[in-house]
């Protein structure tokens, strides 16, 4: 499944009723089985864009299309949230089954499919736990299992690891890559972390500060499968540096603007 965004703009009213332009003419495409990172400073509208693709927000102008065929009992998109967004009254098993219930999958298949993805995300043995009994990293595994369980054609990830500590984040990034190698989902991954974007993605789409516009699209030509050792290589540093030089000015202006 391909994601195509054509000149997407979004203006919303803030609390005082003042119009705020979050996105301006964002056009981009994510190919089938491609891992694209959407990178930008805080408040650049990258989450807004992801919410538009997920159907949770309507664009003020422009369109988003999903191109390709859906299998039965397959969801077009599924989202992984920064703050996990698990239902606290549901166990791990029931949380993972949530999306399947909404797809109308029968109970027996729900249980089986949820179990598969619980195993895939390393949650086996935690089926009966409630979210508050889990660490942050384990909770986000549940978030990922819940999203993967509906077999989404496009997986949307909204800074999924930025609420985790640095060590857990590193481990989760590696696990995500392993899962991606196995499932070959089309992934649109929002982050403000350049290293993360370079480490994970095939392509990095760089957004400007508000209103978000596409500043550049940078292909990441690093071999896969990527492992932790890659982080110390000159090639990795060069790729990060190239993107940082692109957004340094933007970041500095954003910093001064906020003061």
């Amino acid at each position, binding site marked *: 499944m391909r994601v195509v965004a054509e000149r997407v703009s979004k203006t919303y009213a803030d609390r005082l009723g003042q119009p705020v332009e979050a996105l301006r003419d964002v056009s981009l495409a994510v190919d089938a089985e491609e891992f694209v990172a959407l990178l930008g400073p805080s408040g650049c509208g990258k989450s807004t864009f992801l919410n538009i693709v997920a159907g*949770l927000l309507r664009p003020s102008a422009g369109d988003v299309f999903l191109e390709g065929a859906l299998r039965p009992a397959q969801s077009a*998109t599924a989202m992984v949230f920064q*703050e996990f967004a698990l239902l*606290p*009254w549901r166990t791990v098993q029931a949380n993972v089954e949530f999306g399947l219930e909404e*797809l109308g999958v029968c109970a027996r298949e729900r249980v089986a499919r949820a179990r598969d993805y619980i195993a895939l995300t390393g949650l086996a043995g935690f089926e009966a736990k*409630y979210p508050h009994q889990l660490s942050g990293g384990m909770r986000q595994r549940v978030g990922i299992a819940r999203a993967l369980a509906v077999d989404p054609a496009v997986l949307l990830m909204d800074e999924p690891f930025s609420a985790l500590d640095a060590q857990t984040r590193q481990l989760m990034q590696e696990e995500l890559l392993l899962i991606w190698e196995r499932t070959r989902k089309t992934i649109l991954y929002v982050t403000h972390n350049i290293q993360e974007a370079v480490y994970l993605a095939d392509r990095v789409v760089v957004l400007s500060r508000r209103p978000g516009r596409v500043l550049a699209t940078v292909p990441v030509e690093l071999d896969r499968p990527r492992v932790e050792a890659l982080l110390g290589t000159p090639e990795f540093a060069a790729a990060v540096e190239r993107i940082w030089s692109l957004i340094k000015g933007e970041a500095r202006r954003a910093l001064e603007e906020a003061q």
Partner: protein
Amino acid sequence: MSTRIPAPDRTRALERRDHPALRVAALVALLVLWELLTRTGRIPALFLPSPLGVINAGVEMARSGELATHVATSLRRIALGFGLGALGGVSVGLVTGFWSVAEAVGNPLIAATFPIPKIALLPLLILWLGIGEASKVAVIMLGVFFPMAINTHTGVRTADPLLIRAAASFGAGRVSLVRKVLLPSALPMIFAGLKLGAGTALLLLVAAEMIAANAGIGFLILHAQNLMETTKLMVGIVLLSLLGVASHWLLVRLERAALPWKTP
């Protein structure tokens, strides 16, 4: 020349100890003191009967069946009134919580009628429903309805918007949202409302039974006072206290069973 001093200990200000033995001792001491005070004969039993006297009277009333009649009558009234009020309150609170039209219609009505002390409505309810059971049940129902409706409404409205968006992102429709997100979100507030409502229900039960009844714990208390039977009067008061403690205990147990994710 350097000196060595221990790192400052400031834990005393942060300490808060538990005294389980003292809790029991205080209660027992109060009862013993009361018993001794009445034994001296300085306080007439008409004013303050002794604790043992109250217990004896209670046992006596239980034997004769007098107690069972009053308790059963009161329990029936409170169960009906509390049940109907809670059911109505939760339903109205859910509907006004998730449906903006119902909120626009319902909230001003609730805000306008909520401050009325419900016991003031009893004469009107008697006029409408008669002096029998219906008016007593109705006044308890009204007393429970409002805290339940308001708490449920608040519970639904303060549901985490992130959870609502997450559920919607998986294609949840309105019915699914109410059942799987809003109702569970509101449950802690609903239980807080139930505990609040239980106290109100007891208060209104006694008031209603004192105004117009020929059975029930409230009637028992007022009747005993008329006959200068202070011991029986105290039996009624102890019964109410037990009823209050029991209903709270029951609700706490129910809450634990209904909200397993709240207990670690």
